[in-house]
């Protein structure tokens, strides 16, 4: 099934890319095809849970792969649906976006499933290239091209550093396969190998936007279409985070590993600096970029415990983050489609212009902030639990303090939406049923995950247990 998914997505993307120019006027058809493919891959991913074994020494089948397929296919499905929010397809009449998303998702899945550094690298690039293109997708969008250029160049530097790192690790271990690396590396890696790991972490941290490798993120988010920014904020993150789980548990050692400690440091830095940066942002996508940095920091804290609890926390965090973040970005997309730029200024009084939208936004923002009974709260709770289980008290305390900062900047959004009066001449906001139903769906998911996470949790825990 895993292989089938890979093939399906690869060919799905090809088909979409091929037929895209013919459907410039009817992007919905492409969306439907893409959605169908993702739906199929999602179901197949569920079926793949009981598989095991390795394909060509490079791709591992198993529960975690299955989980990755399901989560990423879900992202793909949602993005495919979200593409319909703009009736005209991104005011550009082009459907390649679906192909790129599909390949990006494929890259993400392979990243998690990979058992081999070469595979890992290729998968990483697959998912990275698709996002480079997606960020700079509208060639007339000034911020879009600027962001894409920065993102792409920095991404290239990042992957070069990653390659150096891999090369050094390879030099030391003579292995590219995870298992071999783990055996050769042993408990105390040499200086060269540590350098390699550090350089690798730059490449990984770059994609996860950990401080100080984060700097591309605000620009990329701000420059991209909200939908793309949404995709960017969840798909590579999900893949990378789960990929790091695999790397940590299969290749780079247990809880005492240097890598895990470094991740802890980067994550802490991300949580703290990201929060400070987010405080005064006025562009919502930029704000959300910093918020992503903070969230990835929380996630990294869980990763750094390198424990089952921590990994479960990571998986749950990702699931929660997918629905929450996509929900918020979809709302941004829907509003941009209505001609409302993604700035705090233009969001003033939104809650009065369309109360229901206000409530939906509140759900997402509050979940991002971590308000109880919403998915975001439990996600943070799990992270804290993982830290406590690992007796990592200092990170725990720092993390909880930064939650306060988070409230400040998330509530700035809510304040603009609910407390400010709308501009004098602003008309009633009514937007498409597609957008509306998607938002409602995601909001319900956010609530559901926050209230009754048990089935999901059990499933995710089983998935991460498999790699431990």
């Amino acid at each position, binding site marked *: 099934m895993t292989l089938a998914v890979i093939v399906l997505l690869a060919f799905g993307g090809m088909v979409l890319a091929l037929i895209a120019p013919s459907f410039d006027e009817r992007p919905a058809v492409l969306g439907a095809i893409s959605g169908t493919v993702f739906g199929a891959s999602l179901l197949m991913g569920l079926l793949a849970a009981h598989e095991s074994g390795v394909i060509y020494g490079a791709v591992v089948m198993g529960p975690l792969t299955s989980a990755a397929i399901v989560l990423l296919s879900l992202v793909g499905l949602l993005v495919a649906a979200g593409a319909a929010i703009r009736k005209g397809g991104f005011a550009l009449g082009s459907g390649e976006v679906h192909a790129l998303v599909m390949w990006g998702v494929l890259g993400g899945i392979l990243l998690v499933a990979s058992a081999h*550094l*070469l595979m890992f*690298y*290729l998968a990483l*690039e697959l998912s990275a*290239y698709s996002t*480079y*293109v997606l960020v*700079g997708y509208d*060639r*007339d*969008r*000034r*911020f879009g*091209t*600027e*962001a*894409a*250029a*920065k993102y*792409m*160049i920095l991404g*290239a*530097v990042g*992957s*070069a*550093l990653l*390659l*150096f790192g*891999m*090369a*050094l690790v*390879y*030099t030391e271990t*003579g*292995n*590219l396969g995870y298992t071999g690396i783990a055996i050769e590396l042993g408990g105390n890696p040499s200086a060269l190998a540590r350098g390699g790991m550090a350089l690798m972490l730059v490449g990984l941290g770059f994609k996860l936007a950990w401080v100080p490798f984060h700097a591309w993120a*605000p*620009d990329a988010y*701000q*420059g991209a279409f909200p939908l793309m920014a949404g995709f960017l904020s969840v798909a590579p993150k999900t893949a990378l985070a789960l990929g790091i789980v695999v790397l940590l548990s299969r290749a780079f050692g247990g809880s005492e590993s240097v890598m895990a400690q470094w991740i802890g440091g980067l994550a802490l830095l991300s949580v703290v600096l990201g929060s400070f940066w987010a405080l005064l*942002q006025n562009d919502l996508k*930029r704000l959300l970029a910093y918020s992503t940095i903070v969230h990835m920091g929380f996630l990294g804290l869980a990763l750094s415990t390198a424990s089952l609890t921590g990994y479960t926390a990571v998986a749950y965090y990702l699931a929660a983050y997918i629905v929450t973040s996509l929900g918020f970005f979809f709302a941004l997309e829907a509003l941009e489609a209505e001609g409302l730029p993604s700035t705090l200024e233009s969001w003033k009084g939104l809650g009065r212009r369309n109360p229901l939208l206000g409530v939906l936004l509140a759900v997402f923002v509050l979940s991002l902030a971590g308000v109880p009974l919403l998915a975001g709260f439990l996600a943070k709770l799990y992270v804290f639990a993982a830290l406590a289980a690992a007796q990592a008290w200092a990170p725990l305390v720092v993390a909880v303090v930064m939650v306060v900062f988070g409230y400040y900047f998330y509530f700035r959004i809510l304040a603009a939406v609910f407390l400010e009066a709308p501009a004098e001449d602003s008309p009633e906001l009514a937007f498409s049923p597609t957008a509306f139903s998607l938002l409602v769906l995601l909001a319900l998911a956010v609530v559901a995950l926050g209230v009754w996470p048990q089935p999901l949790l059990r499933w995710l825990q089983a998935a991460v247990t498999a790699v431990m």
Partner: protein
Amino acid sequence: MVTLGHFLLFSGLLMAVGLYGVLTRRNLIAVLMSVEILLNAAALAFASAAAFREPHLFAGQIFALFIIVVAAAELSIGFAILLNVYRTHGAVTDDAISEMRG
């Protein structure tokens, strides 16, 4: 006698040059060229490690092969993006793309 150390150090020197280029070049195409140097250095490191350390599988050499190919792909996307930058900003310099900040 040439040892792995020689090659690795050379690769490190190339990396240093490439990084210097990335940090000092103000034309984005030149930056991408520096990135190419970086990628080549990495490929070289893989290939040399494979040649010295892995007599049977040559996984490192294969890796180097892939790097060369992927770098080309990367460059094509990069140039497409830079063309768009040129179209929107009129120049492909770092000054042109420093509007978003803070």
